[in-house]
Every structure is written in C-alpha cells, then in structure tokens.
C-alpha cells in the first residue's frame, strides 16, 4: 500500500499568442480545483462550449510551484522567477 506524498493543486491560465501567464492559482483541495476549472470554461446561453483556443486552462498537480516551473516552464517563461500562486 502506498503512502501519500504532499501534493499541491494548481490552475494555470496562459495566453499562447503572447506567452502571457494570465493567472496562477493554488487550491487546498481537489473540489475547489474542479470548481475553478468548471467556472473557467465558458458556456453560452444554451450551455454549449465557448472555447478560446488562444488560452490554455490547465489543472496541474505537483510537489511545489518550483517543480511546476521546471516541468511546465513555458507558462512561466515571461513571469518573475519568484512568482508564487494565488491561494484560493
């Protein structure tokens, strides 16, 4: 049986065309992360998807924000090195 390692949950919004990190949020549990993910995906009046292909909205998990900056460096390339996520 595996033990559990500490895990951090994040949501990143990133604009591809400009390389801009639009937001970087951290969540204390997966329910909050899921709600934020659902909230960020737009639906029209009929409930159909309105997807902006220029903006990536990605749910991530890692041991630390620093680990994420290594594995997904593209999102943070044009941000301050010491950028920390906003807690939700």
């Amino acid at each position, binding site marked *: 049986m595996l033990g559990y390692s500490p895990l951090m*949950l994040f949501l990143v919004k990133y604009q591809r065309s400009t390389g801009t990190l639009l937001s970087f949020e951290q969540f204390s549990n997966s329910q909050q992360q899921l709600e934020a993910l659902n909230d960020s995906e737009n639906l029209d009046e009929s*409930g159909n998807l309105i997807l902006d292909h220029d903006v*990536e909205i990605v749910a991530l998990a890692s*041991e630390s924000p620093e680990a994420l900056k290594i594995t997904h460096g593209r999102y943070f390339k044009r941000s301050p090195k010491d950028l920390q996520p906003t807690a939700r």
Partner: protein
Amino acid sequence: MECPHLGMVSTAEIDRLGRAIKTGVLDSSHRLILASLKQRWLALQQDIERELIQCTTTHDVTVSTRLKNMATLQEKLQRLDGGLSTIRDIVGGRVVVTGDRFAQVQLLIAIFEHFKHDQPRLIDRFGDPRCGYRALHVQIKRDGVRAEIQIRTHLQHEWADEMEDFADRAGRQVRYVNGYDFPELRDAKRSAAQNCLEAILKWSDEIDRLERSRYPKNLQPFVEKAKQDFYSRLGEFDARL
C-alpha cells in the same frame, strides 16, 4: 468506466461526448457525463502524481501531472480520426530527469514496474521522433481511463518547451506535421518561421547526437551553437510582426 454519481459510462457514450466536444454543442446529458469524467480524470491525475513521486524517490527527478484543457482536447478531436475514448493523454504526467539517457531508461524501468498492472506500453520517441520531439513515453490504462507519462532528460525537455513556445506563436500544427510550412503566415513572417523550424530541428538532432554518443565534450558546443542559432532566428521571427 466507473464515474462519480453516474456509475458505469460506456465507451460509446464517451465517444458520443467526444463528437459533441468536437463541435462544441453539448446537451444536458453530455454536460453531465463531462462533469463526471472531469472528476474521474482529476482523481486519476492526482493518483498518478502521488505514485510517480513514490516510485521515483531514488532518482533525481522533477514530477508534475496535468489534465488536458478543453480547447486542446477539442483541437485534438478535430485533428484525429479516433474518438474521445481513444485519446491517451487526457491525463498526463511529466518527469524530467537529471542525468543521461541511461538514467532516463532506468527511470522508465522503475515507472514500468510501478504501473505493471495498468497495461503499460512504451512509446519510443527516440526510434520514432515526432517533428523533432524525442523522449520516452509510457501509456497506461486504469479503470478504463488512459494516461500518458512523458520521461525527458533536461536537454530534451528544454527543447520540447521551446518548440511548444514557438508553435504557440507560429502555428501549433508544426508539432504534428512533418515539413510544415506555416500556410497561415505571410511573406517575411512565414519565411522567418521556416528558418526557425530548420534551426530547431537541427538543435534536436544535435541533442540526439550528443546523448547517443554519451556526452563527449567535443559535441557539446554543437548543441549550444544550434540552440543559439535557433534563438537568433526566433528573434528575427518575433521582430516581424
């Protein structure tokens, strides 16, 4: 596949949802299945993250996992023939290993061993590079959900990150279509993008040569030169707005 609140969801239902995502038109039953699948995908993502951390403790690695976003998922469904049930990287792990290809293969073995009950399958992007992309991937399937774990050295990872960044601005198809010639760009911008592509592919080849030759010092300057050449051409591309 067992889904929260819904019980079993069939492959046919998942593929029906995939066709709806492809067009962007979702009815209430699609939205219900999607909400439940997302919960399932996120749970698997977190399980894989924990397990990757556990099974790589003796390796010098950095690990993260991610859930593919809806826009990228839609792009993939539009690009490929297969249905949503066949997409293998909705849940994705990434492991960046400090060390050489030997360390990378050692890590691959450890990951294979850990996920041996999840139908692991190797995708060898050394033997079959995709538009310059080289790495080792492991596909798994757990409780009907597919996931893919990327295993990269730092050199491979740096290249892949830059390729993705370039593709974001020049055309994402460059990552999937060999010999892509940027039809959405015009004149000088298009020519600059083609120059960038040539340089980044050369950079990938130099990394491959260095790694295959076990990192002799005399080959390292070729990697650095190819990388700098790419950055130089990227500067020219960015200057042509």
